[in-house]
């Protein structure tokens, strides 16, 4: 695409329509955006004349939303691009670990190719930023990291990414500390680990080691925490304390954090305050086969929550399609966010908090100077996009069309 | 005993004591002389005042005086109490087992029914209850025989307590075809119409409740229904009962015994039915069971009258009864963490039909000249201590007559 061009006839949200103090709909309008060197440098209302000869692309009234963030995938685990196979039943998580270690190296399609297959799907869904965990353990060395980096390199002008060096088999249990350190020196920007209690069998030592690695490498943290009930919440409290000690507020994430959903509501409130004060954020995949963290409560208390797809057709699950907008819709369904405002606010969970309107209905995105990264959707407003999982027609990253097309658009059949 | 006499040096509660933060620190009491005449309290003098009449005086050396208690839910007609120890049989089929058991057992117990009922009454009296509401089995096997035995026993205690008899179709009003029998019972000495689980026993909520209501209106009598049915089934039955109560204009004349379903509900749900019961003057009697306690403080807060009872002492249903309503009040206080002076003192109201020496604000409310002399004399410094420490009953007085213990020349334990 051109370095500088007009994207015309873009639908943007302008505010909420109210009747007797109740919001009954979203007001949108058509605008023209000037894309220049990857940024939006001008926003003009449709009707205002454009007097220049710059190239023009026509968005034909498609709705623009901030591009999405895929906050939790495993590019190295996915079987996408290879043949179908279901999961093998396993009686314990350890058994599944061993199974995975055996199966992954034996797959015909390379890790890099499989990662690319998944990246293509993630991008088409609207995700222009990916946080991927990459398994680091002695048997695989840094191979997974290298393969995933290779795949990401090929997508570097289509999306941004961050890599978590993920000690899947236990930071202490699998003796992976050294390797994780190396991974951090070789391009992984985040330290990851899993269940200090049930996998590493030593909450304190595991967490301390995790934080040490992070501080040493000046890296963020993203811990997989499945441990249930009060075991989980205790681990979270210890992590919060260590985070504050290290001064790592705002740099730590907890993926899954199931325990928060298991304890009483009073305890969840208390924990939410602790998490907020330690600047710890939560990443959830909105599971339906077990209790999940109370996102509504966390949000109320100011804890940052984001959504990821997690396993997509791999050894752990045969399901998953990489569509982060679908997952946002699932979150809304789970918490019964059925009205216009709640639905449109749900978008924030997949955009790092960016929504076209703030909670009072003022337009806050896009603004001149913002990155030219957006998704063009066949929907009348973001509420509809979330509820109806509307079709992503095109994805633009830093001014470039990286997925879909602005041409050959059929009028959508109402889906 | 003579018709008039004085109790001297009786401890009465005057008010609460406070610290500088206005927190209640204790109960202030004083010693008084109480005149009892023709079954009523005819005079209350402070110890500084002198007694000028020649009537007998009994010095109780500072015993605490509280209103006598009410045993609001007992079955004196079917018991092992007073006979040899006998444990229960396992109830393989729940309530159905017990009903089958009774069809054989009750006729066997009949010869001892009157004597054992009297022994139970002695027990209850000794613990301070001078009012008894007993549910009496009316069923096709035992017919009205248990009722006869109950009335005979109670007649002999006319000078010691007041009583009400509930005609209780234990085997199901409809299920055991006992409608005609209940009507007969009402004509032969039963005072209230009883019932049990319209849903799980009678299997017809509407018809069961309507029948109870019909019989009650027909005989201008109150109602006391056993309701164990759980969660929303219990809630629904209670709501139907409230509606029928309104339709019949029977406000203030209906009691639900147990109301176990309330233990399963959320706070908003329990609040809803509490408000309904308060509006329709439906009261609840509870045995404060350990495992499925109903939210008594919530009910009380919403204006529902809650009273307590022992249900059974030792019989084929359970061997654990004690018969002591002061202990029951203490259990309630423990269960709901009523640990400080005021709430402990106030918990007495649940066993006295609402009367306490001091009211909620610490103002003297009882005794008053003219009140019936229904009194328990306790070894305690205040009612809070009496409830918490399950104070020893020194004497129980009913309409001026000492019906348990003694007020003449005894050793005090030096309160």
């Amino acid at each position, binding site marked *: 695409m051109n370095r500088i061009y007009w994207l015309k006839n873009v639908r943007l949200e302008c505010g909420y329509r109210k009747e007797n103090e*109740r919001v009954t*709909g979203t007001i949108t309008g058509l605008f023209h955006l000037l894309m220049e060197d990857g940024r939006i440098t001008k926003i003009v209302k449709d009707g205002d004349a454009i007097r220049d000869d710059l190239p023009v692309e026509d968005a034909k009234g498609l709705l623009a939303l901030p591009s999405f963030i895929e906050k939790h995938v495993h590019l190295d685990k996915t079987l996408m691009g290879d*043949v*179908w*196979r*279901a*999961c*093998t*039943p396993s009686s314990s998580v350890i058994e599944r670990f061993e199974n995975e270690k055996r199966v992954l190296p034996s797959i015909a399609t390379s890790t890099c190719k499989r990662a690319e297959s998944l990246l293509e799907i993630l991008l088409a869904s609207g995700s222009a930023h990916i946080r991927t965990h990459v398994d680091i353990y002695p048997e695989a060395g840094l191979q997974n990291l290298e393969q995933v980096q290779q795949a990401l390199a090929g997508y570097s002008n289509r999306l941004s990414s961050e890599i978590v060096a993920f000690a899947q088999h236990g930071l202490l249990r699998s003796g992976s500390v050294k390797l994780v350190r190396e991974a951090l020196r070789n391009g992984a920007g985040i330290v990851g680990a899993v269940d200090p209690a049930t996998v590493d069998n030593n909450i304190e030592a595991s967490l301390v080691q995790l934080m040490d690695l992070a501080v040493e490498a000046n890296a963020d943290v993203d811990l997989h925490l499945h441990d249930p009930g009060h075991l989980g919440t205790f681990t979270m409290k210890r992590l919060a304390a260590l985070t504050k000690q290290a001064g790592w507020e705002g740099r730590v994430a907890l993926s899954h954090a199931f325990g928060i959903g298991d304890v009483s509501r009073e305890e969840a409130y208390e924990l939410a305050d602790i998490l907020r004060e330690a600047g710890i954020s939560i990443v959830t995949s909105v599971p*339906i*086969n077990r209790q999940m963290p109370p996102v509504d409560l966390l949000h109320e208390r100011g804890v940052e929550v984001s959504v990821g797809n997690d396993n997509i*057709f791999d050894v752990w*699950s*045969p*399901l998953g*399609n990489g569509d982060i907008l679908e997952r946002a*819709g*699932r979150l*809304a*369904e*789970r*918490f*019964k966010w*059925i*009205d*216009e405002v*709640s*639905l449109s606010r749900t978008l924030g969970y997949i955009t790092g908090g960016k929504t076209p309107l703030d909670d009072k209905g003022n337009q806050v995105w896009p603004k001149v100077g913002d990155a030219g990264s957006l998704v063009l959707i066949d*929907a*009348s*407003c973001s*509420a*509809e996009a979330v*509820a*109806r*999982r509307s079709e992503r027609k095109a994805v633009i990253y830093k001014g470039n069309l990286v997925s879909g097309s602005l041409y050959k658009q059929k009028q959508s*059949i*109402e*889906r | 005993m003579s018709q008039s006499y004085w109790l001297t040096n009786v401890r009465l509660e005057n008010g609460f004591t406070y610290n500088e933060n206005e927190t209640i620190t204790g109960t202030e009491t004083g010693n008084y002389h109480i005149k009892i005449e023709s079954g009523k309290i005819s005079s209350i003098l402070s110890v500084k005042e002198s007694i000028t009449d020649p009537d007998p005086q009994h010095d109780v050396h500072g015993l605490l005086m509280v209103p006598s208690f009410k045993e609001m839910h007992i079955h004196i007609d079917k018991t092992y109490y007073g006979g040899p120890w006998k444990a229960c049989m396992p109830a393989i089929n729940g309530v159905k087992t017990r009903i089958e058991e009774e069809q054989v057992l009750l006729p066997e117990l009949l010869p001892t029914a009157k004597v054992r009922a009297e022994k139970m009454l002695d027990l209850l009296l000794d613990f301070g209850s001078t009012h008894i509401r007993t549910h009496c089995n009316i069923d096709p096997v035992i017919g009205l025989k248990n009722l006869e035995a109950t009335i005979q026993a109670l007649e002999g205690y006319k000078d010691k307590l007041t009583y009400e008899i509930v005609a209780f179709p234990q085997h199901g009003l409809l299920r055991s075809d006992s409608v005609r029998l209940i009507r007969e019972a009402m004509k032969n000495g039963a005072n209230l119409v009883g019932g049990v689980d319209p*849903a*799980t026993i009678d*299997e*017809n*909520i*509407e*018809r069961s409740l309507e029948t109870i209501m019909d019989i009650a209106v027909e005989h201008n009598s109150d109602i006391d229904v056993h309701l164990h*049915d*759980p*969660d*929303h*089934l*219990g*809630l*629904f039955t209670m709501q*139907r009962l409230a*509606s029928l109560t309104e339709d019949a204009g029977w406000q203030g004349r209906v009691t639900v015994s147990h109301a176990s*379903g309330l233990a*399963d509900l959320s706070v908003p749900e329990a609040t809803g039915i509490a408000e309904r019961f308060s509006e329709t003057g439906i009261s609840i009697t509870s045995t404060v069971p350990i495992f499925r306690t109903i939210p008594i403080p919530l009910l009380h807060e919403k204006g529902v009258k809650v009273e307590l009872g022992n249900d059974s002492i030792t019989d084929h249903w359970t061997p654990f009864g004690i018969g002591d309503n002061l202990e029951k009040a203490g259990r309630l206080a423990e269960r709901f963490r009523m640990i400080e002076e005021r709430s402990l003192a106030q918990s007495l109201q649940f066993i006295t039909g609402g009367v306490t020496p001091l009211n909620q604000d610490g103002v003297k409310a009882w005794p008053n000249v003219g009140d019936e002399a229904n009194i328990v004399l306790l070894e305690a410094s205040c009612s809070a201590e009496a409830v918490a420490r399950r104070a020893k009953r020194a004497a129980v007085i009913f309409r001026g007559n000492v019906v348990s213990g003694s007020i003449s020349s005894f050793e005090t334990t030096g309160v």
Partner: protein
Amino acid sequence: MNEAYWLTNVTLESGFVFENERIDRTKTATYNMYIKNGIIKDLQLASTMPLKTDGPVHDAGKLLALPPFKEMHNHLDKTYLGLPWKSCTPVPNLIERLKLEAKELAELAETGQLRAERMLQLLLSGGATHVRTHVNIDPYIGTKNLEEIQRALYRFKGKMTYEIVAFPQHGLLRTNSKGLMRQAMKEGASLVGGLDPGGVDNNIEASLYEMVDLAVEFDADIDIHIHDPGHLGLYTIKKLASLIDEAGWKNRAAISHAFALGDVSIGESNELASELSNLGIAIMSTVPINRVMPPIDSLHEKGVHVALGCDGFYDSWSPFGTGDMLEKAGRLAERYNWKDEYALSQSLQFITGGVKTLDHEGNRLWPKVGNDASMVFVDASCAAEAIARRSTRAAVMVDGNLVYGGLDRESALKSN
């Protein structure tokens, strides 16, 4: 399509591959099918016999054929599909929702046919060729919704078979709708519906009795919505079971939602499951993710027939839902962690009315010669994959006619 033709290169499931006595994967093979007058008259392995025919031949391009899907719980009359986007108003309980709906009904009745047709097309594109729809029968719109829905269904003749449940959404007793229900049954509704005898009608025994009475009067099956929770719902279901038994209405009743079965202990629901199974009372579920649902796994084990549906969606009740029965089956598999090949393949029966492609030893059950030539063509290697990956539906065939999509693989798959 032609009256008689050969459909070649159809992939069908042909068996299981066992490893260590465990089913490891599904075997498939390519077949040629002779279809005449909408029936499969012949089925041959493509490789065994070279096809010699002068008649028309259509190539299925090795697409996988699966039994057609059934949407067993929809409300064609409620959806906003076809109208501009509109979100919902949250309400604290069912009665409040009914009040809100009542306000809209008359206005919506005008566009009933249009909206229902949109929904039918959506269901068809997902692979459903049968729909059981509930239609509001109440004093607010009388039987108008029924008329509109029937017009829409008529337009889908040959594409979608249907059953219409006369559904007293606002309460049979609460709105005194027995007369209207009778009218609806005379005007073409084929099942008698009902709703929460306890929570809405406030008289469980009378409400159930009236409903069963109507069913017997019109010799119709029953499908009642029971949302009532906990032991209230359990009691209602038990009462219904005893009335069904008394009326001799075995295999003629269904309960939609039946949430209560998930609220009570597993012992209690298993006990009731045996009774439901004996009386042939089926459970229709929408696999909700925002509340406890009935224990479909144990109900199924006890022999209770369970079928799935999407419920009403894109309407005043919920903005979510896609009408995709395959997605619904996938959600069920996700909910119960059915991840291995066999478990995934077994989830298909919940959207096909119990039809399975293979039995547990891998012998083919469907299709067989003599079956209707009705199937869904999927871009997948086996049913397990179709469910797990929510594979693309390339085409749908009903009685030998292509009613959606195309068999030209390239263009068919692109159209999605």
